[in-house]
């Protein structure tokens, strides 16, 4: 069972993910996925307890995305698989900077899930779609990594959810 504090913090993180994606970046839903809150994926680097918040954020955003239920499955699946991989790697790698780099690479690599979604729905060429979506994801995650690192210095994400 999740502790109340952890549950509520994750709920608020999900809400923040959605709020930012709705207010800040109107390009969120194009075929090139460029969501600023994607950088929230890095929160799991600091504590695996942020897993549900980030996944919930993706879930609710996709629930209202024009790609609909289709996007819900693949979008959420992409987050669960990538974050799951990160949590596994987190057991042996402890260095935060290294983990941020690893996380960026994981999310870029697993974009094949989204490319596959677009291939199924629109029969777009798989490799070209993979390339464009992976580039977008890599951009957000790579720029997001130093930002989250800086934010962590003043906010201490681990302490907030685990204390």
């Amino acid at each position: 069972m999740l502790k109340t504090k952890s549950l509520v913090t994750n709920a608020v993180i999900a809400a923040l993910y959605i709020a930012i994606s709705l207010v800040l970046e109107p390009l969120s839903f194009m075929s090139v996925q460029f969501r600023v809150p994607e950088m929230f994926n890095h929160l799991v680097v600091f504590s695996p307890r942020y897993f549900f918040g980030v996944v919930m954020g993706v879930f609710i955003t996709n629930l209202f995305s024009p790609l609909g239920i289709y996007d819900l499955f693949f979008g959420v699946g992409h987050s669960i698989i990538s974050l799951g991989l990160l949590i596994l790697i987190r057991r042996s790698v402890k260095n935060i900077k290294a983990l941020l780099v690893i996380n960026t690479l994981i999310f870029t690599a697993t974009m094949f899930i989204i490319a596959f979604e677009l291939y199924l729905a629109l029969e777009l060429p798989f490799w070209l779609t993979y390339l464009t979506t992976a580039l977008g994801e890599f951009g957000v995650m790579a720029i997001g990594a130093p930002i989250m690192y800086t934010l962590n210095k003043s906010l201490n994400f681990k302490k907030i959810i685990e204390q």
Partner: protein
Amino acid sequence: MASSLIIGQYVPADSVVHRLDPRTKIMMIFTFVIIVFFANNAPSYLWLTVFSLGAATLTKIKPRFLLKGLKPVWFLIVFTFLLHLFVTREGDVLTTLLGFPVYTGALIQGFQISLRFFLLILVTSLLTLTTTPIEITDAIETLLHPLKKIKFPVHELALMMSISLRFIPTLMQETEKISKAQASRGVDFKTGPLKERIQAVVPLLVPLFVSAFKRAEELAMAMEARGYRGGEGRTRLRELAIVSRDYIAFCLFFIVIAGLFVLRG
């Protein structure tokens, strides 16, 4: 600005689709997303188009609203159509467009894929147009209930989703307030290279995170002070019930599925 603060696309109306149990709608739309890929000729596509437009009419939502929801995907639909038009080489050469030969097969394929995508988007958006986010949350909680047996935290996730939905408008206002405050101090979110624009979010994210965490802390404390102990024995404010209209909807939908498999080539 006020309109952009509405979460999702829910349009209140007094229609039979609105009154259907959210679980009925989720299960039907879920099935539709799969069966739409079984259409493979003109009659089967026409059949699904008639069903989709019929369902859309039943919602009593003005077509203007429906089309507005599709706005972000028009580009994708047109792009897909053109891509298939120029890339596919099946059938006879119909005409030459911008120096490229256009085949009849390409025209048909491009049209079918675009139509299929249009139907997918139209029908799935009917769920969020006619169902409030909180109804969707309740429906997901009951639909996922069996997963409790394998220790999947269904109740906790549903509660998390409700709390999240409650906080979205608050945090959206907060995001807007803080970004205006920072813009007045000279932070530029709208122009400049992409990298700089993204870096400009740092002075936005710090206060946002601080205020969000503070809210979470206060809510967690309030919940514990009131004795929140998780899902066991909790009663619900809204009870879901499958009634006769849901059974009728299922029957009609079954006819749609059967018709599709009769019509497809």
